[in-house]
């Protein structure tokens, strides 16, 4: 028997695989394909304090082994998410992470506080790394001091464990990770998308209405693995790894690099069964590479 379980702050995971924020809506659509209780956890689309419309279309473009998106945090607002979406997810026996976004520190705090009301959320994922909004978001993700301050503020009000989701678009990911760890983060999510642009040759302008977008998918996996690998050497809080995961082998690569759990984003679009298929394959892959459990593989890719 291969033990897939892993225990993270607020998240008793039966397996380490969860759909990534923004790539799974609030779960309703994937319910048509499989039972969501199979998942390790579910990460919801980003919540802001007020309903947000997001950016103009086109919002996605395809790239080599990846895609760009500039959805821009479209969501019905935290109140509606709590009222309409969480009861749906609560039907399933699966932990829920709420992805928290905002354009000011106050907004992050208010969204985080709003989630205090509900038991249907197990942890927060503080999204200080969304490249697709004009204000906030990304600034908090590039300045270690601002990131720490925000983390501390959210920790102060929230009764949920807080995972801080970092941006890869920085010179020094380790500085950011250490900074938010010190500020009280319970865990890290690595990585959000890499900022990119595609130019429409016919239109002679960026294809995305927002001009820039976030690159995701297998193209960015080496960048994600690098950041998990580097950060792991400098922090002791758990890391949820993501970026380009499409197979159980990819999951093991993240575990070896130092992730304690993983999120799957873009792969859901290519194959709606990605998450359950990866979970089904994981025991075989772990065994093949000599592991009996997920926890046994975490961080084992570091030269000793």
């Amino acid at each position: 028997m291969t033990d897939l379980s892993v225990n993270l702050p607020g998240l008793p995971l039966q397996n380490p695989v969860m759909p990534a924020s923004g790539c799974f809506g609030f779960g309703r659509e994937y319910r048509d394909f499989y039972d969501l209780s199979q998942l390790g956890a579910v990460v919801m689309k980003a919540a802001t304090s007020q309903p947000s419309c997001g950016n103009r279309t086109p919002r996605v473009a395809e790239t080599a082994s990846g895609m760009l998106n500039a959805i821009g945090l479209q969501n019905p607002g935290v109140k509606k998410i709590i009222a309409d979406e969480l009861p749906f997810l609560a039907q399933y026996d699966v932990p829920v992470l709420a992805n928290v976004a905002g354009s000011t520190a106050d907004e992050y705090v208010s969204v985080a506080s709003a989630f205090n009301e509900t038991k249907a959320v197990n942890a927060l994922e503080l999204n200080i790394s969304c490249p697709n909004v004009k204000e906030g978001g990304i600034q908090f993700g590039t300045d270690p001091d601002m990131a720490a301050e925000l983390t501390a503020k959210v920790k102060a009000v929230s009764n949920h464990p807080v995972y801080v989701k970092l941006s890869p678009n920085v010179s020094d990911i380790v500085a950011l990770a250490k900074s938010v760890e010190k500020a009280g983060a319970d865990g890290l999510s690595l990585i959000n998308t890499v900022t990119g642009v595609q130019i429409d040759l016919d239109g002679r302008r960026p294809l995305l209405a927002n001009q820039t977008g976030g690159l995701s998918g297998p193209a960015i996996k080496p960048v994600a693995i690098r950041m998990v690998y580097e950060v792991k050497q400098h922090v002791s809080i758990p890391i949820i790894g993501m970026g380009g995961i499409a197979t159980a082998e990819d999951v093991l690569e993240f575990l070896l690099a130092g992730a304690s759990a993983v999120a799957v984003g873009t792969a859901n679009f290519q194959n709606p069964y990605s998450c359950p298929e990866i979970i089904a394959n994981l025991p075989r892959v772990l065994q093949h590479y000599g592991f009996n459990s997920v926890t046994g593989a975490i961080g084992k890719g570091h030269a000793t």
Partner: protein
Amino acid sequence: MKHVDMIVKSVRPIALDTYEMCLQNDYIANMAQPGQFLHLLVDGHTLRRPLSIANTDLVAGMVTILFKTTGDGTRRLAAYMPGARLDVLGPAGNGFHRRSETIKTALLIGGGIGVPPLYFLGKDLQKKGVHVTAVLGFQSNAHIFYEQMFRQLGKTYIVTNDGSYGGHGLVTDALDQVGAIDHYFACGPVPMLRAVTQELGSQAGSISLEERMGCGIGACFACVIPSHNDSGYRKICRDGPVFPAGEVVL
């Protein structure tokens, strides 16, 4: 909607840069409603391609798609050989709402590669006893496809942008030749849909829209369009691709 394998039965060019592909899958053939689409995975690509269902054959379990080779995905698709398997999500989206009690005469308005779903719709309407007229616009003579097929459904007006066949101009230039109708069904580029809905004013109608998609199932918010009512954005992949004319902001 299901995740299925479809077997390529045939691929053939039917107009300039335009192909007809027949795919075998009983489930899709039986479930498909006019206006729905297939979300197809083409080898070597991250994102699926949405392509409308242009025809079905229930007995043979066949589904037809018609597509223009506008980029690498459709070019590769055109190169698939009979026997190849295609990874498909479908039938996806909501089809055209058509109540035969209230619709006795229908007008199909198609522009270019917006024409394919209208053929499937027209066949279905004809079967339901609805009187069908079609106005189809193409870039030029070389781009025209399925003309004879539409003529078997009802009176068909063809216009071309360059006047190389049929009427010269846009589909809107031909609308005044069509008599009274109960409902119109339009599919084509946004500027065409904008012109058509304006021209036909309060006339009841349905329009089918295109947008770049991420998931194709309603989960990613890539394919949204603002709506006139307070529900905010609608998702083309899940709430559409067909909307009542006037519901969304073009």
